[in-house]
């Protein structure tokens, strides 16, 4: 939480639809407006929830933009409209939202970064399961592959993260009373995602994530808290295997918690096959280096690690040369990452 942008970012973090993130975000927007600040709503998704809609009363809405795509018109946030209006603070719902086709950016978090860089403060809402590095663990726990993700650094650069807590039991009651979704959708949700164990596990993740954010904030303020002992450096070996996406997310998460640098390396002749992973790396701010290698790839990766002060090489268990790397690099720490599994 280093406050890298001109505007301040405050995130209301929840763990499921219906915990009250949007409500809290609007309460905050109204409070600031009552204190005399120039506040607008950049984007708000009402979902038909009366109590939440009531909180928008008296707040100015920036009109939504209309985007044309293949003959259809879609509505979404008008980012440049928000910037042109230039309020002191904009409330922008659902940070992880994927924008409609034809928008300026593909993800709403990119819009939010642009608004912040224009010097406008933003309050926003998101659920913990949208955090990119938690994607595989969330799937393992809930069986749901979350498609809309936010890179971890967007969280880390937030000035404030607040946990919106509600117990799973209370949330399930809300769902049963029809506060969250209309009856048909609520029944469907209760059958799938909204089970007590899913919700409890996600809530635990949100609590831990918020605690971690606070610890990072304290660390940034007190350099003396830097971790003692040897400084670590993680290197991810990217291979064409599909589990590499999971490897990158896991490596990023561990590096963030250890507070150490994280880079990636790959063999140049595989460049075409690993292009999707390079995008994930770029998204998560992981630098990737290509090395030339004609002979033994494992040997070349180990040599690269030794030459670059790497303390830990991360490789997926399914990489074809994992045994060779383990054999070649007994002088290095190797972390073999296994795909997360779900009990049947």
């Amino acid at each position: 939480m280093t406050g890298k942008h001109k505007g301040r970012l405050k995130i209301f973090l929840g763990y499921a639809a219906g915990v009250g993130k949007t409500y809290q975000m609007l309460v905050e927007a109204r409070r600031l407006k009552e204190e005399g600040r120039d506040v607008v709503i950049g984007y708000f998704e009402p979902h038909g929830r009366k109590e939440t809609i009531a909180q928008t009363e008296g707040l100015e809405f920036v009109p939504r933009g209309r985007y044309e795509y293949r003959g259809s018109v879609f509505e979404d946030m008008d980012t440049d409209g928000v910037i042109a209006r230039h309020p002191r603070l904009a409330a922008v719902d659902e940070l992880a939202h994927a924008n409609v086709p034809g928008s300026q950016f593909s993800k709403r978090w990119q819009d939010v970064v642009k608004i912040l860089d224009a010097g406008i403060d933003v309050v926003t809402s998101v659920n913990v399961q949208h955090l990119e590095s938690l994607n595989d663990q969330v799937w393992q726990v809930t069986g749901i592959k979350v498609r809309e993700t936010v890179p971890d650094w967007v969280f880390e650069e937030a000035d404030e993260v607040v946990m919106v807590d509600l117990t799973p039991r209370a949330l399930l009651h809300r769902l049963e009373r029809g506060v969250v979704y209309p009856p048909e959708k609520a029944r469907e949700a209760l059958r799938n995602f909204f089970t007590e164990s899913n919700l409890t596990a996600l809530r635990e993740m949100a609590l831990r994530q918020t605690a971690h954010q606070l610890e990072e904030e304290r660390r940034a303020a007190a350099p003396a808290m830097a971790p003692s002992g040897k400084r670590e450096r993680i290197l991810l070996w990217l291979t064409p295997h599909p589990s590499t996406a999971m490897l990158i997310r896991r490596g990023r998460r561990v590096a963030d918690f250890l507070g150490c640098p994280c880079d990636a390396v790959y063999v140049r002749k595989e460049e075409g096959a690993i292009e999707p992973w390079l995008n994930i790396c770029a998204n998560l701010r992981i630098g990737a280096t290509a090395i030339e290698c004609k002979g033994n790839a494992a040997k070349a990766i180990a040599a690269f690690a030794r030459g670059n002060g790497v303390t830990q090489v991360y490789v997926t268990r399914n990489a074809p040369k994992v045994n060779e790397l383990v054999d070649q690099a007994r002088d290095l720490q190797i972390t073999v990452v296994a795909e997360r599994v779900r009990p049947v």
Partner: protein
Amino acid sequence: MASKDFCRPDPDELLRRIQAQETGDRKGRLKIFLGYAPRVGKSKRMFDEGIRRLRRGQDVVVGAIQLKGAEHLQPMLREIEVMPPLIIAGRESIDVDAIIRRNPQVCLVDELARENPAGSRNRQRWQDVEQIRAAGITVVGAMNLQYVCEEQRSVERITGRRARNGVPAGFMHSADEMVIVDVPAEEVERSDLSASQLTELRELALLLAAQVVEEQLQRYMEAHGIKQSWSAQERILVCITPRSSARAMLDSASRATQRFHGQMLAVYVKQGELDRAADESLQQNLEYAGRLGAEIHVLEGSDSIARILQFAHEERITQLYIGHTQRKRWAFWTPGPVDRLIQAAEGIDVRLFPQTKAG
């Protein structure tokens, strides 16, 4: 691992499940709003909940309220029936008998950690709450972190102060629900603590809540006969040997455990008799693991890799630390024990460490 067996509850678990349901039926539920410091708004959240329940038709009374310094709560109280307290030696105490006679569905109790005045039926308010719950009445209460006994040492380290009284861990962990009242430090008005102290307390409260939630999850899974193979928390297992490289593994594991606020375990699988030097070295390594806060397990099993894996899956391990293989290079045309471990470690990261000689 026979992963199919994971889903079948054994008879003991079924029994536990039934017992859990039975006690659940008799005893009133306990829901706690936990604040990380005074004036974060926990009492307001508690009364908000009381009013919401009242408006939904539940029979709600106030069993105890702390009005001094909380005049903003006054308007909320016009809606809810307040049970008059007992006055003993000029101080207020909950009238437990009157509440039980009144027999509401829900009783709101502020400041759960209060000490009762001398001459009360119980010394502590949380004991009153236990009696009210025993009568089948649900209690919704509020309290602050500095009164949680197991957190008092940490709170004192941060604030330099220690509360005189506290509620035992068992009471906290018996709560059916715990809600964390999370607000940024800057929004806590009139606090005599600094923003950094408040932030540290806030982190502590979030982690306590995470721990309570973790236990609830375990209980839930147990009551429903679901064996869980994953953990929402990082759980690190270090495989100990007599070798001195165990120390480097333990140091790394300890750092990682702290950063993740996870759990650290150390395991040794007995493999025949060790010579004296090796045994001494092993004992030193196990002691060192204990000093770093690891939970230590000494296991038996003829196939140590299989035993470690079984243990790791039972304990929902997320990261396993082990030394690199010691085998000669020429033996590599067949998979060695470490390769077997890597291939069978479903859902677990295996971190291999360079080896040094024993001793």
